């Protein structure tokens, strides 16, 4: 009983337990809040994939994903540090930078604009440029649509006043306005409202992308961060880990659409498999531009930022920045396979 080997074994076991406990302690994931641009829709699936597949946990992060109420509002929350990292429309963020907000994009996940006119198929309008004038267009105030729509109208030599712009306070009203024919079309994402409204209500919907009508596009959804928050080296490290796991989540979603849809539905009970999959598939078609084809997910090109700025400056009264680098940085992104 009192043999030294047994004693050593016991000591070893105790030491092992202590050590295990210590590593477990060190691995207690850090809390990290991430505010989305909007209530849940398919585009958000990759973040839930990263969480449920444990990618964030592997990076030592316990990420809480919060819903948002429009890019403008969320950009303000980032600027005043309520949520230092969030998901925001890039054009809206550029406007915020012009207004003096200390924010920048640290990863651009949607690099082409999905903004579209979405209308009832039985009253399809506007489908052509000459149908735009006089159309009744519903928009949600505070979301991403107004900035790019202003640029779109400008590029066509028109003014926003040429349509009857109906602003509503929440996205449901926007959809109801079109369904009840109070508005001809709403401005929304082709991979979100169109298919979802069709599946939920049975009314056949149609859509025309602003890009297809007038070649208007900007960088779209981006992960943005507060510049002052980013000055802290610890926060930089946190962000780097968060982005790496998020990139991995996006890549995983890209490769495993079905599983991603299943994961997403768990968090968004309003969605069924068909809509989730439709939205995820639509999202995955616009994650890169021609310039970023071979780059890691989220990596954005200077020239794309320049073009976005030119468009918004020329047609939507954006205050241009002398150097587009104030808008973004790629330095916190990782290369594939997005692991430590």
């Amino acid at each position, binding site marked *: 009983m009192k043999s030294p080997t047994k004693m050593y074994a016991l000591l070893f076991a105790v030491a092992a337990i202590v050590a295990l406990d210590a590593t477990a302690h060190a691995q207690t994931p850090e809390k990290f809040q991430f505010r989305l641009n909007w209530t849940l829709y398919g585009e958000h699936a990759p973040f839930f994939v990263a969480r449920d597949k444990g990618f964030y946990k592997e990076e030592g992060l316990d990420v809480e994903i919060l819903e948002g109420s429009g890019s*403008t509002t969320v950009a303000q929350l980032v600027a005043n540090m309520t949520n230092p990292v969030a998901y925001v429309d890039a054009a809206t963020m550029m406007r915020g930078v012009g*207004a003096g907000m200390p924010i920048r994009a640290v990863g651009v996940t949607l690099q082409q604009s999905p903004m579209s006119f979405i209308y009832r198929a039985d009253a399809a309008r506007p489908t052509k440029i000459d149908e735009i004038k006089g159309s009744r267009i519903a928009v949600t105030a*505070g979301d991403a649509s107004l900035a790019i729509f202003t640029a779109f109208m400008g590029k066509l030599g028109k003014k926003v006043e040429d349509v009857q712009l109906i*602003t509503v306070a*929440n996205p*449901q*009203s926007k959809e109801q*306005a079109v369904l*009840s024919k109070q508005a001809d079309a709403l401005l929304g994402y082709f991979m979100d409202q169109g298919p979802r409204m069709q599946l939920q209500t049975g009314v056949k919907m149609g859509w025309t992308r602003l890009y297809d009508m007038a070649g208007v596009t900007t960088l779209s959804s981006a992960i943005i961060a507060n510049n002052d928050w980013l000055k802290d080296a610890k926060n930089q490290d946190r962000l780097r880990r968060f982005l790496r796991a998020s990139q991995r989540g996006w890549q995983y979603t890209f490769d495993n659409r079905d599983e991603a849809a299943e994961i997403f539905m768990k968090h968004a009970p309003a969605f069924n498999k068909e809509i989730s999959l439709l939205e995820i598939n639509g999202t995955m078609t616009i994650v890169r531009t021609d310039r970023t084809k071979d780059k890691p997910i989220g990596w954005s090109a200077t020239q794309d930022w320049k073009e976005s700025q030119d468009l918004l400056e020329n047609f939507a009264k954006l205050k241009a920045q002398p150097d587009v680098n104030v808008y973004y940085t790629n330095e916190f992104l990782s290369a594939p396979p997005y692991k430590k």
Partner: protein
Amino acid sequence: MSPQNTPTNKAGRLGIKLLKMLTPIAGVLVFLAIWQAGVMISKVPAYLLPAPTEIARTFIDELPRLLRHGWVTTYEMLLGYLLAVAVAIPLAIAITSSQRFDQFVMPTMLFFQVVPKVAVAPLFLVWFGVGVLPKVLVAFLISFFPIVIDAAVGLRSMSSEMNDLARSMGSSRIQIFTRFRLPTSLPYLFSGLKVAATLAIAGAVVGEFVGADKGLGYLLLVTNSNMETALMFATLVGLTLIGLVFFYSVEFLETLLIPWHVTHRVREESGTM
């Protein structure tokens, strides 16, 4: 020559009057000065809180636009308010004349008052479209209740002794109503009308928030979305002005219609002291 009419006394009285007029203005100016200084010293970014001077400049620059949208909100508010008055006063008369009717409509009325208007408003968009009607209805719904309640309290406020007196003097029911009951109720009615006046503008703006293509509520949403904070504040100033002008118009009407009312007497007496 009576002592009151000596020139020094006159000047003194004028001075007091002037002081009385200037004190509220001075209060507002001090508030604005603190705001301005606060913004300048702590360098609050303009997208969070613009300086008063900037808001004033934007207000002047954008005046035509503010007037155009302000007019829309004003008539939505007025229509809703007038509709509320037109419905609420007869209803109050009916409620006070018949207890059965009171019991009959009160639950429904309470339901419409208690149901959160902001929550129901989105349905208005579907039912009534994006025109004037839904805004007028929200303004109506919000301003309706205080008028009914206060008018009913007023109509019930006549003492039974007064009623007996009128009857003993041979007044008919209609005469009792028009000569005694209605005048007695006016002070109460007007307090309801004044409360409703401040609510009606909020109602019109709530209506515009739900879905609109013009009006100051619409302008608020668009400027907020475009991060034009100064114009947003200028819009708020416009809304406040409309609300104030409307409130004081109702109050002015009150002083015209019931100059004998005790609240005015008290105010005048304390004013000359």
